[in-house]
């Protein structure tokens, strides 16, 4: 019986081997989305626990890594949803130029804030596509959707962000 079959039958040794093999990949994927090592570790542990709990649903001829990554993505989306910042920043007159580095740093923080207020699914697609520059196919597979849907989410994220930033008087340099 191979490793994945043994895992599907609930053998803890097989699961340990898989955890050691895939924990790095799951952590790397999660930390790219949530951008906080502590949170990413917690979510990775939660993902692996859920993976074990759902072992009966796993087909031993399937792709374990892709399956675990999808579970990790859903957990990360749930985390972003429940930790979405509530408050918005006050509007400023449009077109204010910000050459001062300190002000630019503030602008970056406000861009991050505005980004964190996007709907979780848009945020994940935009983080992975624009910040991490991962291939759309990889993102689509982890989100369980099509490449077209990912592109649409990224497009919507950029548009919403542009509107919000312009309303707050922030012009990215």
């Amino acid at each position, binding site marked *: 019986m191979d490793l994945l079959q043994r895992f599907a039958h609930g053998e803890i040794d097989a699961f340990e081997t898989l*955890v050691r093999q895939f924990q*790095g990949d799951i*952590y790397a994927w999660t*930390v790219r989305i949530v951008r906080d090592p502590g949170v990413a*570790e917690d979510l990775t*542990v939660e993902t692996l*626990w859920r993976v074990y709990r759902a072992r009966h649903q796993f087909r031993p001829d399937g792709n374990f890594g892709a399956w675990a990554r999808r579970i990790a993505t859903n957990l990360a989306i749930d985390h972003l949803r429940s930790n979405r910042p509530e408050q918005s920043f006050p509007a400023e007159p449009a077109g204010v130029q910000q050459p001062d580095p300190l002000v630019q740093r503030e602008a970056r923080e406000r861009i991050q804030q505005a980004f964190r207020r996007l709907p979780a699914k848009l945020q994940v697609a*935009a983080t992975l596509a624009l*910040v991490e520059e991962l291939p759309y196919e990889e993102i689509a597979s982890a989100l369980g959707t099509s490449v077209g849907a990912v592109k649409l989410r990224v497009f919507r994220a950029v548009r919403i962000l542009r509107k919000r930033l312009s309303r707050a008087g922030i012009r990215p340099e």
Partner: protein
Amino acid sequence: MKEHEDKYMTEHDDRQIRDALKQSFSPVKTEPRRDLWPDVLRKLDVCPVRVPWYDWVLVGLSAVMFLAFPRLVLVFAYHL
């Protein structure tokens, strides 16, 4: 002409947003700081995989049905 300019400005702004976003988020270390297996094992011990209460209710109801109507076993077996 105005429409063309607007489209150009929108694309230009979008590109700026994308660049700003990339600059706003510093790169993250993608290596875990420690082995997570002990945490997973602890979680498995603390939260053992349990059968939810509604599954037990379902099993109980099925048992009662099979006792009351034994022929249902055949119907059930046929659908398995």
